[in-house]
C-alpha cells in the first residue's frame, strides 16, 4: 500500500519517546528551593575553594536583579525556580577503577541508550566523561590524554586541581550578568566538563560527554569550559537523551569556548531531551547559553542536531576577536508535536578579515514552531569581514510554523554579507519521481530529508553522524528510512 502523508502524520503523532525510561538509583538530593544557603551548600558539598563560593554568591546576587526574558518566539509556563532541587548526585561517591564496580542499574541505562562504555572505549576510541545527573561517575581514557598534557575532567575537579586556569577563564566569554539563565547557572551549576589542550597539541581523539536528566524534579545546570591553547586542536562532542517526565524539567547550561591564537575547536552537539508527549505534556526546557571567543587566526565551529526538548532556546555564538579568525555554525533543528525551538547563532565580527558561515536547516512537523534567530554584526574595525548565511526550512503539514529572524548589522564599508532563506515543503514531484523509480514514499521522504540536512550532517564526526541520523529517524519515525 502506498504510504501517504496522512499516514506519516498519524505515525508522527503516535510516536512516543523511545528513550523514556527511569533508572531507579538512590540519589542524594537537596531540598527543593533556591536561596543563598542552597548556593553555599552546593559549593560546600563540592568542597570548593572560597573564591568559587564567592563567585557563585556574586552571580546569585546579580541573578536576583534580573528578569526572565520573553522576547523569544516561544510560549511556555515559566518554570518555578523554587520548586526545583538544585543538586542531585548518585549516592555512591567512590571513583571506580573498572566498569564492573559501577552500579549495574546505571550500566543498564547506558546500554538502553546504546552507549556501552566498553564498546565506546574499544571501538570508537572515544573518551567519555559521563555526567549522570550532576556528578561525573566515569572518566575514561584519561591516561592517554594525560600523556599529551591534555586535561579532560569534571569542572569540580578542575576547580580543585587547576584553579588558575578556571579562575582565568570562567565567565570570561559569558559574564555572569549575560542573561537570566546564565546568571542562574553561574550560581548553582552542579558539574560539567573541563578541557584544556596545551600549546600546539592536536588532540588525538574526539572528546565526548553524555548528559542526561535522571532524578525526578531535578534541574540540571552544567557548566562546560573548553580552552584550546595556541596552535592546538580539539573536537568535542556532547550528546543528551533524557528519560520521560511529566512535569517540565529545566536545563540551563553554559558552555564557554576559548580558542587562543591559531587554535581550533570543533564543538558538536546532538540534543535529544525529552520533548513531551504528543499532546505537548511534559518535556524539558532547554535554555542554554553557548559562546566561544576566537583569538588571532583561531577557528570555532559549532555543529548541532536538535531534535528534543519541549522548549529550546539556544544560540551558540562566536566572538571573532582576533584578526583572520573564523566562526562556523551548522545546525539542524527538528521539531514535532508541540515542540518549540528558537535557535540560531550570533557572529560578532571584531577582527580584520574575519569570516563566518551559517548553515541552518529547520524541519517542522505536527503542531511545532521552529524559529531561526541569528545576528551577524560587523564592527567598524572589522575590515574585509565576510559572512555567508543560509537558512532553509522544511514544513510538514499545515499546523506547524517556520520562522526566521535574521538580524544583520554592518558598520564597515568593506564588509561582505550574504543572507538567504527559503521555506518550502517536500515537492510532490520529487516524491513522485522516487515512486516512479520504485522507491516507496516513506523511503522517498527519508531520502529528501536526509538530502536536505546533508550539508550539516556531513560536518559531524563519523560516530556522531550515525547517531544524529538515528535521532532524525526516531523523531520522524515512519518517514525516514
Amino acid at each position, binding site marked *: 500500500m502506498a504510504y501517504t502523508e496522512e499516514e506519516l502524520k498519524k505515525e508522527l503523532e503516535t510516536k512516543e519517546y523511545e528513550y523514556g525510561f527511569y533508572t531507579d538509583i538512590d540519589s542524594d538530593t537537596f531540598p527543593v528551593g533556591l536561596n543563598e544557603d542552597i548556593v553555599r551548600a552546593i559549593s560546600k558539598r563540592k568542597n570548593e575553594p572560597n573564591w568559587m563560593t564567592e563567585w557563585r554568591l556574586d552571580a546569585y546576587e546579580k541573578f536576583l536583579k534580573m528578569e526572565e526574558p520573553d522576547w523569544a518566539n516561544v510560549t511556555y509556563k515559566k518554570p518555578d525556580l523554587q520548586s526545583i532541587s538544585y543538586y542531585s548526585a548518585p549516592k555512591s561517591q567512590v571513583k571506580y577503577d573498572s566498569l564492573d564496580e559501577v552500579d549495574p542499574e546505571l550500566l543498564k541505562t547506558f546500554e538502553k541508550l546504546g552507549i556501552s562504555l566498553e564498546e565506546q572505549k574499544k571501538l570508537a576510541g572515544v573518551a567519555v566523561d559521563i555526567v549522570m545527573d550532576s556528578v561525573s561517575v566515569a572518566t575514561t581514557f584519561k591516561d592517554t590524554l594525560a600523556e599529551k598534557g591534555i586535561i579532560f575532567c569534571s569542572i569540580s575537579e578542575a576547580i580543585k586541581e587547576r584553579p588558575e586556569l578556571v579562575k582565568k577563564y570562567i565567565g570570561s566569554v559569558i559574564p555572569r550578568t549575560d542573561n537570566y539563565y546564565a546568571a542562574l547557572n553561574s550560581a548553582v551549576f552542579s558539574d560539567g566538563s573541563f578541557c584544556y589542550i596545551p600549546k600546539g597539541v592536536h588532540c588525538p581523539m574526539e572528546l565526548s560527554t553524555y548528559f542526561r536528566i535522571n532524578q525526578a524534579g531535578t534541574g540540571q545546570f552544567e557548566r562546560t569550559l573548553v580552552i584550546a591553547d595556541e596552535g592546538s586542536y580539539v573536537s568535542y562532542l556532547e550528546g543528551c537523551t533524557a528519560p520521560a517526565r511529566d512535569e517540565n524539567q529545566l536545563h540551563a547550561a553554559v558552555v564557554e569556548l576559548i580558542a587562543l591564537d591559531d587554535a581550533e575547536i570543533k564543538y558538536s552537539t546532538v540534543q535529544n531531551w525529552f520533548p513531551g508527549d504528543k499532546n505537548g505534556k511534559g518535556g524539558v526546557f532547554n535554555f542554554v547559553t553557548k559562546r566561544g571567543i576566537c583569538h588571532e587566526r583561531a577557528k570555532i565551529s559549532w555543529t548541532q542536531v536538535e531534535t528534543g526538548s519541549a522548549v529550546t532556546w539556544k544560540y551558540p555564538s562566536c566572538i571573532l576577536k582576533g584578526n583572520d579568525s573564523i566562526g562556523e555554525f551548522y545546525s539542524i533543528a527538528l521539531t514535532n508535536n508541540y515542540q518549540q525551538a528558537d535557535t540560531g547563532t550570533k557572529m560578532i565580527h571584531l577582527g580584520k578579515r574575519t569570516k563566518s558561515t551559517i548553515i541552518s536547516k529547520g524541519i517542522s512537523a505536527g503542531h511545532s514552531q521552529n524559529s531561526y534567530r541569528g545576528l551577524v554584526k560587523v564592527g567598524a574595525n572589522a575590515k574585509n569581514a565576510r559572512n555567508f548565511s543560509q537558512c532553509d526550512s522544511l514544513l510538514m503539514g499545515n499546523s506547524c510554523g*517556520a520562522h526566521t529572524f*535574521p538580524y*544583520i*548589522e554592518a558598520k564597515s*564599508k568593506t564588509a561582505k554579507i550574504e543572507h*538567504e532563506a527559503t521555506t518550502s515543503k517536500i515537492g510532490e514531484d520529487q516524491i513522485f519521481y522516487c515512486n516512479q523509480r520504485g522507491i516507496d514514499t516513506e523511503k522517498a521522504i527519508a531520502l529528501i530529508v536526509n538530502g536536505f540536512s546533508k550539508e550539516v550532517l556531513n560536518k559531524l564526526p563519523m560516530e556522531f553522524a550515525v547517531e544524529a541520523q538515528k535521532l532524525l529517524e526516531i523523531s520522524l519515525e515512519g518517514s525516514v528510512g
Partner: protein
Amino acid sequence: MELKETLLSSYMAFDAQDGPQRKLQDQRAAAIEVFEQQGFPSNKEEDWKYTSLRALTKVDYSVFPKEEVSLKLEEVKQYILQDVDTYKIVFVDGIYNAYLSETTHEGADICLLSAALTKRKYAPIIKKYFNQIAEKEASLTALNTAFTNEGAFIYVPEGKQVEKPVQIIHFATTKNPKLLLQPRNLIVLEKNAELQVVERHQSLSDNTTFTNVVTEIFTEQNAQLDYYKIQNDQSQASLIDSTYIAQQKHSHAKVHTFSLGGKLIRNNLNFYHKAPEIISTMKGITLIEGEQFVDHHTLVHHAHPNSESHQDYKGIYAEKATGVFNGKIVVEKEAQKTNAFQKNNNILMDDKASINTKPQLEIFADDVKCSHGCTIGQLDEDALFYLQTRGIPKKEARGLLTYAFANNVLQSVQIDSVKKRINKLIAEKLGVNIGFDV
C-alpha cells in the same frame, strides 16, 4: 513640557474646535487614549530597535499653523511634476491650497478628506473604510487618527480608470516653523478601478519639520493601484509614513518608495490580504548621505491562498548615513500556494555608514515558496577597473555602477515623468552625468 504632554493638551483644544473632525469623535477619542498610554515608541520596542525618535520628540512642535501661507507657482514649480498632465492635491503647512491644486468630481472623486467628512453623500464610504485597516494599537498611527482633519481623499468607482496620475503634495514653509503635520489620506478603488498616485512631502526651508502621515488604501476586486512615494526632503525634515493597504481578490497594489533625503525617514508599509489571488509589489531605492537616516519596515500579511508578493529594496549609504530594513512576511495557515519573495541589497560607500537589516519570515502554511535574500557589499573592483581601462574616469565609473545597482527598481516605474525625475535626482546625488535616458 514634553512633546507628548504638549500634544495631549493640543488635542483638548483641537477637540473643542468646530470642524470636520467632529464627525469622528468616538474614533479619535479611542485613538488619543492609545497614544496617551503608549507615548512615542522607544528603542526598547522590537520594531523601533534601530530607530530613535528621542531627538525628534525633544522639539517643541505645534500642531496648529500660525498663519495661512500662499505660495506662488514659481516658488514650488520644481517639486511638481510638470511634463505630464495630472490631478493635484496640494497642501501648504497642512492647509489645502486651491490655487495650486486641480481636483475633480467627474468620474472619480479626487478631493479633500475634510470635504468627504462633511458631505452627506460620502458618509457611507467614510463609515465603511475610514480607520478600518490602520493599526489601532500603533501609537503614531493612533496619534494621527486623533488629529484627523485634513488629507487627500480619492474614491474611484467601479470600472473607472483614472486617466491622469494624481499628485499629493505637502509643502512646509518658513512661516510656520516647528510644525507637526499629520495628514490623513484615504484612497478607495472599487472593483476594476485603476489609479496612479505620486506622493511627496517637501519642506521649503531648513526649518525643523516633522510629518506623521497615515494613508489607508483599499483595493477592491481586480483593482490596480500604482503608488509612488518621493522622499527627497531638506536636511531638517523628518517623516514617519505609515501606509496600510487592504487588498481584495485579484487586485494588484504596487508601491515604489524613493528615499533620497531628509533627516529621518521611517516608512511603515503594510499589505493585508483579504481574499485569495492577490499580488503585492513593493520596491524601493534608498540613496542617502551625511547623517541621514532611512528606515523601511514592510509587512505582507498573506492570509489567503494563491497570492504573491514581491519585494526589492536597494540601499546605498554614503558618509555617515544609516539605513534600516525590516521586511516581514507572514503566511497564515490558510494561505497555501503562496509565493513570497523578498530581496534587500545594500552598498556601504564609506566607513562611517551603517546598515541594520532584518528580513523576517513567519510561516504557518506548508505548501508555500518563500525566500528572502539580503546582501551587504561594495562595488565590484574589477568592474570599476574595467570601466577605467575604457577611459571612463573613476568617479563616473562608480556612478555608473551604483546607478546600475539601483536600476532594477527604476525599470518597473510606469510613469515616464517620475522615472525621468528619479533618474535625474539619482544622477545628481551621485554627481555624475549618466548620459542616457532610461
